[in-house]
Structure formats: structure tokens, C-alpha cells
């Protein structure tokens, strides 16, 4: 899903770039204000973690594999704005170090994977948590749904950008991308849920999005 140079038109790139840079600026101001220097090594190491985790392919069927996106996981663990910063760093290193994703398409890639895949999906997660009863099971269920959606929405945005640029016709590209990534999204959902469930068991204090009901905490204590 890393768009190279030239696939997305300049006007689409310009718009997504402005949105991405603006979001990153807000995230940087917030990171500076709220957490200061302590946050810097943490965000850096988390970016390296997302990078390493993306290298562990998961099987889809019969030997084909997809790789983990990690934007929603980062949002659950660090908060949505920090996750956007982490994804920006990951995409920058992938673009510069691996020629994976074009330098002019960096704005579009961050928009798809950081903003839509991270921040918007985190909004979906929060909305689901408002509706669902407050328990560990429903938290994990909401995580699964939101992470599946994050992959799907990121792919749909990618298809829409390509369609708007005239690179591929939307009525074919959108269903094709959505179909493929709804399958890959199942893998993303399984993995994100497994990660969140394990971290909740071992270090619940690290899951920023997890706010147990007061009585559940009392029972646990």
C-alpha cells in the first residue's frame, strides 16, 4: 500500500500533504507540551518496533502472506496523535532507506496509513467502546473491528486517491482493493487483538486506550 512517485496526481498529493503536515504539526506540539523529552526515546523505539513488526509477515492462505500495518495498534498503545507521528517516522525511513513509497507521495501515504488507518480508526474504536459494555471482552472485540476497518479504510483511501488521479478507474479499483484488503484486514484484526490481549495481561498500564470500569478494577485488586 506504499504508493510510489507518479501514481497520484500532484493536486491529490498536495491536499493530502497539507492534511498530513498539519496533523503532524498538532501532534508535535502536543508531544512537546504534554510529555516532553521522555516521550522522544519511547516514540523512537516504538517506530522501530512498528518497522520490525511489519517485517513479520502473517500467512493469509496457502503460502501467500500480508504484513501488519500497526497504525491502530500504535494508536491504542500511545494515543492517536503519537501514533500518527510514529507512522510518519516509519514511512519516512521506509521511503528513504528502502525506496518503499515515493517521496512526493509521502503525504498521501501518511494520510492513508497514519491519519485514516490510525486516527480515524481510533475514533471508530472509541465510538464502539461508548456503545459496548465496559469489559475486557468488548474492548478486544472493538479492537478487532476497528483494526479490520483501519486496513480496509486505508486501502479504500488509496484506491480513491488513485481513482481521482486517473491512474485507475474507481469502479474497478475500489472493489478490488477493498476485497483484497478486507481479507488482509482479518489478519490485521487477529494480530492486533492478540497483541492487545497479551499486553493487557502482562502490562495493562501500557494500553493507553484501556480504561477499565472502576468496579472491575476493585474486583481485580
Amino acid at each position, binding site marked *: 500500500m506504499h504508493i510510489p512517485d507518479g501514481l497520484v496526481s500532484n493536486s491529490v498529493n498536495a491536499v493530502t500533504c497539507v492534511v498530513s503536515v498539519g496533523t503532524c504539526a498538532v501532534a508535535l506540539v502536543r508531544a512537546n507540551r504534554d510529555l516532553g523529552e521522555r516521550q522522544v526515546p519511547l516514540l523512537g523505539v516504538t517506530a522501530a518496533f512498528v518497522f520490525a*513488526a511489519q517485517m513479520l509477515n502473517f500467512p493469509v492462505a496457502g503460502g501467500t502472506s500480508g504484513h501488519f500495518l500497526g497504525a491502530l495498534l500504535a494508536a491504542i498503545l500511545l494515543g492517536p496523535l503519537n501514533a500518527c507521528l510514529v507512522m510518519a517516522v516509519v514511512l519516512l525511513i521506509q521511503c528513504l532507506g528502502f525506496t518503499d513509497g515515493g517521496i512526493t507521495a509521502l503525504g498521501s501515504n501518511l494520510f492513508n496509513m497514519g491519519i485514516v488507518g490510525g486516527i480515524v480508526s481510533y475514533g471508530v474504536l472509541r465510538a464502539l467502546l461508548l456503545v459496548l459494555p465496559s469489559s475486557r471482552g468488548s474492548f478486544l472485540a472493538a479492537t478487532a473491528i476497528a483494526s479490520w476497518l483501519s486496513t480496509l479504510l486505508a486501502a479504500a483511501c488509496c484506491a480513491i486517491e488513485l481513482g481521482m488521479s486517473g*491512474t485507475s478507474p474507481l469502479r474497478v479499483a475500489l472493489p478490488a482493493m477493498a476485497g483484497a484488503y478486507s481479507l488482509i484486514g482479518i489478519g490485521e484484526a487477529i494480530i492486533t*487483538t492478540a497483541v492487545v490481549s497479551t499486553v493487557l495481561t502482562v502490562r495493562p498500564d501500557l494500553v493507553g486506550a484501556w480504561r477499565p470500569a472502576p468496579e472491575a478494577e476493585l474486583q481485580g485488586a
Partner: protein
Amino acid sequence: MNHAFLDAHATLDSPLHRLDARLKTVFALCFVVVVVSTPAQAYCAFAGYTVLLLSALVLSRLPVGFVLKRLALVLPFVGAAAIFIPFLPSETVGGGYSLGWGGLAVSRSGMLVFWNILVKALLGAFSVLLLTSTTPFPQLLLGMARLRVPRVLIMITSFAYRYIFVLVDEAQRMARARDSRCYSHRWLWQAPVIGQMIAMLFLRSYERAERVYLAMLARGFDGSLPAEKPGTLAARDCVCACGVSVVVVALRLCAL
């Protein structure tokens, strides 16, 4: 593992390697923007860009095989986009090829779209590759910092750069341990194993980050990293870059 996989040949010595990182970064970015904005029919302009990049490649003394291998990584995405070409509306049918199934046809405009994305993706990747293979990553970040990219972003990136090697190593050790326990890696329902591995990787990296931060505090970390010796921006290099820029702009303007 190979600890220099991000900037494998950045420590070679050549006129291009000795250039200041700021100059190279700004030039590469502007060059890619110009390339991407060139209309697809401007074949001469693309030939000119390619000649410029190839002469830069000769000047940089990078191994050609390495460059080709890296450029090939762009092709899968371009190929995936090419699947949709036969479905494009065929306003310009002249010179198209009918595939004979269900009215699908490869029209001339479809071919043009494919050529457009192929050449731009390749030239863009080529420019970025030349930039990063002639500049060590820390120098690149230092150059970006001196170009007023926000300090926090630079610091996060330099931390990430340092720890990628450690964590990728860790991930590979975990994958080796998993494989030696007969994990078959074939079907989607086996994915939770990967999830547990990623969870452990996260916990280990988080705890490592906590230890690193404490160790840094103990060594007097005050929120800024000691800067490396910055490169110098020679007037001669600027004049050279201006000369090449004039050529690029001329190529771009010819295309109008």
C-alpha cells in the same frame, strides 16, 4: 544481520558523497517534484532526466546491480496498478489492442497512463536512492535538521534509526525460534502466533526504551543529542547545483 541495510553504500567516496546533505536533499526533492509534474507525452524530457540520473550514478560509483535491485522493488506496486489499465475508459481507441474478452481493451490512453506511472515511479525511486546511498543516514537527518525540520521529529527518527537494527535482529531471532518449533506459516488461523510474537516484541522494546531513557538521563541527557560535525556548503557545489537545476528546468519547460 547486515547493519548497514538502510544506507549500504553511503560510506563510499565520490564527488557525490562529498556534497553537503542539505544541498542533496533539497535538490532530490525538487527534482522528483519536477519529474512528477512533467506530462506523460514529454518523452524527451524523461530521456533527459534519465541521462542526468545515470550520469549522477556514474559519478557516485555505486554498484549498478545494487541500484537495479532496489529499483525493482518499485515494480510490484506499479504492476498492481497496471492490472486496472484494461478497465480504463478508452476515449482514444486508435492504436489500442482489444483483448477480446468482454469488451476489455488496452487503449492508447491506457498505455499512456501505464507509461506515466512506470517512468515516474522509477525516476522518483532512482533519485531518492541516489540521495540515500550517497549520504549516511545520520548526515541526512542532520541536514534535514539544519533545513529546519522540527527537532522532535528528527530526534524520534534518529532513535528509530538506531533501534531498527536491534529490533529487527530481535524479530529475526524470534522468527527463527518459532520456525525451529515447526510453525508452518500457511493459513490465516495461524496468525495469532504472529500476534503473540509482536506483543512480546512490543513489551521488550518498550522496556528497552525505558532502560535506554534512564541510561541516557544518567549520562546527562537534556533533551538534545550531540550533533555530528556538519558538512560544509561550498560555493562551488551551489553553483554546480544551480547549473544542473537550469538543465532540469529547461527540460521541463521544453515539455510544455
